[in-house]
């Protein structure tokens, strides 16, 4: 009998050689009331690659992630997910694209009336209706084991720590075997040990699942650990994009200041 673990990854254009990227955003502009948050951001992330988006608070990092998953609509610019432009899609059409993506919210955003197990099972219940109850249970246990929370199945989100909530959020984000993983401040508000554990976990998941990942963070140490490329955002623009060494060798004052302060 096929289990949830046997569900094959969908082959898309993004997997093919020569494709532009799993996530490609171009010239994104977003203004809230009179406040310009993004001012022409263009980025591209390929499968198996992790891009860390760095920047001070309020520079539009989280808005960028929300634009990528379609929770916010850009004023100008395009967002292509696995080769498909998401502009103009209906909510249900967008849902089909979102099934290929996992999103970890900054504060985990767990459903507070559901247990940890039910939170992780939520995407499976909704989108893997062919899965038997026992297969679903196995899949939930496997996901919780991956994030190191085997014993938390029946706990309520309010009964676990912030770090554990983030792990549950990560398990939920991985439930549908996403091809793209978006992480919004995965280590924010956590102590150094928990932050390190989360970083290790993300690295491990990256190695095992080979997803395209975008990590929004202001934690340079975390970004250096988990990302293959980094982009520094300031006042809605990408100031620099490249490997950590490129940032270190940069002459841009803001980059130097960011590296010095972090």
């Amino acid at each position, binding site marked *: 009998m096929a289990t949830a673990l046997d569900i094959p990854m969908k082959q898309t254009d993004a997997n093919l050689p020569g494709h532009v990227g799993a996530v490609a955003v171009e010239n994104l502009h977003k203004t809230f009331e009179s406040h310009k948050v993004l001012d022409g951001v263009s980025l591209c992330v390929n499968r198996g690659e992790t891009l860390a988006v760095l920047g001070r608070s309020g520079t539009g990092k989280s808005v960028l992630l*929300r634009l990528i*998953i*379609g*929770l916010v609509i850009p004023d100008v610019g395009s967002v292509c997910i696995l080769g498909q432009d998401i502009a103009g899609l209906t*909510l*249900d059409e*967008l*849902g*089909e694209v*979102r*099934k290929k*993506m996992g*999103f970890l*919210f900054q*504060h985990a*955003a*767990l*459903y*507070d009336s559901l247990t940890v197990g039910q939170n992780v099972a*939520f*995407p499976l219940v*909704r*989108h893997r209706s062919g899965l038997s109850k026992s297969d679903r249970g196995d899949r939930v246990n496997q996901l919780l084991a991956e994030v190191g929370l085997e014993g938390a199945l029946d706990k309520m989100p309010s009964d676990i720590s912030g770090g554990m909530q983030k792990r549950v959020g990560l398990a*939920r984000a991985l439930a549908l075997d996403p091809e793209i993983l978006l992480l919004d401040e995965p280590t924010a508000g956590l102590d150094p040990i928990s932050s390190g554990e989360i970083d290790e976990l993300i690295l491990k998941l990256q190695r095992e699942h080979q997803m395209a990942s975008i990590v929004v963070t202001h934690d340079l140490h975390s970004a250096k650990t988990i990302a293959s490329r980094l982009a520094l955002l300031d006042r809605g623009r990408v100031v620099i994009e490249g490997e950590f060494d490129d940032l270190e060798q940069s002459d841009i004052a803001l980059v130097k200041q960011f590296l010095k302060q972090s």
Partner: protein
Amino acid sequence: MSVAAESGASAGLVTSFFEWFGNLGIFTWQVMKAAVTPPFEGRELIRQLDDVGSKSLPLVALAGAAVGVVLSMEVRASMTRFGATSLLPSAIVFSIVQEMGPTITGLVVSGRVGAGIGAELASMKVTEQIDAMEASAVNPYRLLAATRIVACVLMLPLLTVAADACGIFMGWLAQTLVAPISLHQFIESGFRGSTLSDFLPPTFKTAVFGLIIGLIASYQGMSTRGGAEGVGRAATNSVVLASLFVILADVVLVKLILVVFH
């Protein structure tokens, strides 16, 4: 305050008034689209039917009973003055079934269910649970709003029948304590000469009340901003606006029923 400032404030109020209706219209369209397209949320609908229906029943029954007693006492005093005590059962039955029962049910449900939906959805909104639902490719208009609105539409007429029954029974009890009359005689006398068109339209008009309550409370909840204060505001606005629009809709519906059925 200067004239210019006063006119500016008035223009702002008018703008927000039309903006509110415009956004409610867009929300209604989204919910309608979600409600008529699969997948249908049968399990969640049943949960909401229970929440709106059976959990409101004791409150609605008590309110209906209280109205029955008050009407019996008030109408008796007036009828005695005009020497028309034989018309007392008809006066009580008609008052309750045609107006008091539906209106009281609408207002009680506005308070209990309107506040509940408004606060629950607002809390989910400010803690990003609704965004998490969307990110998991689940349409929140279908799962959260449509199910609650349909439950309100279906349960209001049934709750109205319960309120009517309790009101008539308690009206009889209050009446028989002063001037003994059997329940059978009271009901027979109360319904004498009446037709179904006297009772069905006022009962089914409460489906419109249900639509108003569900729609306004869901909209207020799902469009909330601003943390705990926003949740409180959403709950209050849900009750106030739902109650107000129930009363205003009643005026229109009563006139419509009189024109169409009499």
